[in-house]
């Protein structure tokens, strides 16, 4: 419970770093973080988050496929097809984040 409270406090502190942007009107990087730096920060965090969740999901998919082949080696071809299709779907979810980063920066 203490660890959760610590993470909540840390997260809110990081979000509060956004406050100085409202002080700088006109787009100049005067105090705190400017818009460009905030954009890069958000890009790094969002890509890391998307890739992490994508990795977990793909791990589950691969482990299920391996277990299926281990139980019944005869349908390895069909399972391979499902596996590759499923992995491509999950990969594309992480890719949407990458596309936003490339398009907006």
């Amino acid at each position, binding site marked *: 419970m203490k660890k959760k409270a610590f993470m909540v406090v840390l997260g809110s502190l990081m979000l509060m770093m956004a406050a100085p942007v409202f002080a700088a009107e006109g787009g100049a990087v005067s105090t705190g973080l400017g818009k460009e730096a905030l954009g890069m920060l958000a890009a790094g965090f969002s890509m890391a988050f998307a890739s992490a969740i994508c990795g977990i999901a793909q791990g589950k998919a691969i482990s299920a496929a391996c277990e299926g082949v281990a139980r019944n080696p005869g349908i390895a071809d069909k399972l391979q097809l499902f596996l590759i299709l499923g992995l491509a*779907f999950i*990969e*594309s979810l992480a*890719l949407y984040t990458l596309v936003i980063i*490339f398009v907006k920066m």
Partner: protein
Amino acid sequence: MHELNSLLTILIRGLIHREVPDYFVMLGLVMVGTLFVFWLGTRRLSVDKPGIFQQVLELLAETVGKFLDDIIGHGGRKFMAPIGTFAVLILISNLMGLVPGMMPPTGNIIVTVSLALCSFVTYNFLGIRAQGFSYIKHFMGPVLVLTPLFFPIEIISHLARPLSLSIRLFGNIFGDHQVSNVFVHLVPIAIPVPFILLGILVAFIQTLVFSLLSMIYIAEAVEHH
């Protein structure tokens, strides 16, 4: 994020003095080149002693046909034309990214959106042609009472299909191309080899995913309840 101009586009821009975009020249090259090469392959067909090229083309046709039979079922092979075109075009376009001095046409959002829109129009058209106006029943949900609830959901999910197809293909090929470029500029000697292998794998897998999804959409649109 600098723009890369392949060597061929620089040559053609010098010849016609117009600002043709990269993907235009590359896609034209893929289309003309593939048509020409396949035409060459059909010049000397024979049943008893097929040459190597005929065997390769037959392997390609049989692979696509086997997938069609698996997914669409009975009348599958009728749809060899659109699915085969998607498969060959996207495969050759993706593989062009691995050749130094060329740019993959599918690495541009305009090309992938066009391909995804072609797939969208194809499966809707085939559904309407196969089932007439009762194609609208696909959007109505299981019970007629729930239609006002299901209709917007189905419309949105159908519109999300070309969106996801285009962004998936674009993101994979463009991202892979950019990463390869960065690494090749860093260490030009031995490091690019695993990136080229990864590029070949990604090219084949993305072709497979696009074609499989198109087949699944066609199968779902054409099926009789």
